[in-house]
């Protein structure tokens, strides 16, 4: 599903964000990504969601190599991936339902289908009765659930989440993780970056640990020093 082979990513400076990084995530896996700030987590997500290209090596999502697709194909690749960020990235001047509908509008889905699907996914994240709210009228946890609903509404095969609980208190964080578990149970491949060791400990999932741009550890066993 996701494959990175001997990926190097450098930025002017030079800053070596990733060094000889290899990774393979199969369809339906739930993988955590941990590492201190500056370890290369955001770079990794940028590469997977086609917001950047590797300096050398390759990134493969589905059966497409990111470095081999044209600029015009990038939006179509992104439609196969749901992305959730720590700061939610919601349009503040649009309602919850308008935010969630965005990916379906972009693929040109019919109005009636959009309405039904938006209601369905809002029900799934527990926000059925807040579809006409604006983001600013909602709590951080609710906004993150809207962001997850938006990432899921078009049924992507992959959901990547960069610190989805980073701005939330422990209770809300757990709520979001429960939601992600439910999403995973429906067959979506999940790749979640987090600093929250409590969450990782509870789930007993595969954990990939990054340090200074290199893979430090990859396995189910979890060490507190990784986070």
């Amino acid at each position, binding site marked *: 599903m996701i494959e990175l082979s001997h990926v190097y990513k450098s930025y002017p400076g030079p800053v070596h964000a990733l060094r000889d990084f290899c990774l393979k995530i199969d369809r339906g896996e739930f993988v955590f990504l941990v590492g201190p700030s500056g370890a*290369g987590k955001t770079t990794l997500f940028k590469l997977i969601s086609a917001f950047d290209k590797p300096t050398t090596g390759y990134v493969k999502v589905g059966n497409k190599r990111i470095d081999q697709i044209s*600029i015009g194909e*990038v939006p179509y690749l992104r439609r196969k991936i749901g992305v959730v960020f720590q700061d939610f990235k919601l*349009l503040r001047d649009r309602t919850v339902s308008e935010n969630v*509908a965005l*990916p379906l509008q*972009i693929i040109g889905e019919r*109005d009636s289908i959009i309405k039904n699907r938006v209601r369905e996914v809002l029900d799934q994240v527990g926000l059925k009765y807040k579809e006409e709210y604006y983001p600013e009228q909602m709590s951080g946890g609710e906004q993150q659930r809207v962001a997850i609903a938006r990432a899921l509404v078009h049924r992507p095969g992959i959901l990547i989440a960069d610190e989805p609980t980073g701005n939330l208190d422990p209770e809300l964080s757990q709520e979001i993780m429960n939601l992600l578990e439910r999403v995973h149970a429906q067959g979506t491949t999940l790749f979640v970056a987090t600093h929250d060791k409590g969450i990782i400990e509870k789930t007993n999932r595969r954990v990939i640990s990054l340090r200074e741009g290199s893979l430090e550890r990859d396995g189910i066993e979890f060490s507190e020093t990784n986070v």
Partner: protein
Amino acid sequence: MKGMELNSLKQMFNSYIRSWKTNGINHVTTLIVLSFAFTIILSLSTLTLNLERILTSWGKNTEITVYLSDSVEKSTISNLEMQLNKISQIESTKFITKKDAHLEFKEQMSQYAPELMDDEDLASALPQSFRLNLKPHVESNHLASLSEKISSFAGVDEVSYGQQWVSQYSAIVEGFKKSGWFINLTILLSSLFIVGNAIRMSISQKREEIEILELVGATNNMIRVPFVFEGALTGGLASAMAITLSYLVVVAEREIASSIGFFWNFSQQIAFLDAYKLVLFILFGSLSGALGSYLCVRKLNSGWAASRRLGGSH
């Protein structure tokens, strides 16, 4: 839940209104500057049109007087009349005898020089002539060549078209038209720059929205279209404002013309553009706005744009 179509007219219009609410000063500034630029274009066009109208009105009244030699014989006069009637630019000819000329002279000058009215020498001094009326399509700048041609006919002493200066005026109008094109082109290019600048500000203001659209897989065109729409709307509004301002300029021109040029009745020749041209001008404004905006946004989304602002550490 409302209509869900992305980039529907309603949605783009609402986005434009929101943009005004959050960035009103920039929008007002752009609109004022653009309106003045368009006002200059429109006023120059109107002025050129009116100068041409004045020229046409003078052209309609243009007469050529062909004075005959004293010794000319009747047969020569007949031949000359035939030759004049063959000239395609001439609508009609009228032969004025010495007697007719004297009567006209008396009629026109009796108030100013009554002592001359009974002067027999004067009556005989006035020559016979042909008075020629030209067809409406004859342009004033062709009068000189026509006059030269008639001068060469037998029996002709002198040709006079009382408005030789019309030719010079025509040359001035022509020069004005040419320089008008240059000025209008310069202003048009500046307008594209002004709209582009406004759109650049708008892009900066909507950076986050663009990033989110990129995140969820919007294509380049989906991101660009609302900005082009915004440019078209700004251009359309500015051209509508320019029409209002230019109309006020025309009203002022009429006032000035009626006060200083009463004798020539200039003010009747000063008109504003007709409705059809005004609609075209609004379309021109919208297209200029859309073009300025498009030139600005065509490289907006390189496919990787949002990565620059996604933040976080490497």
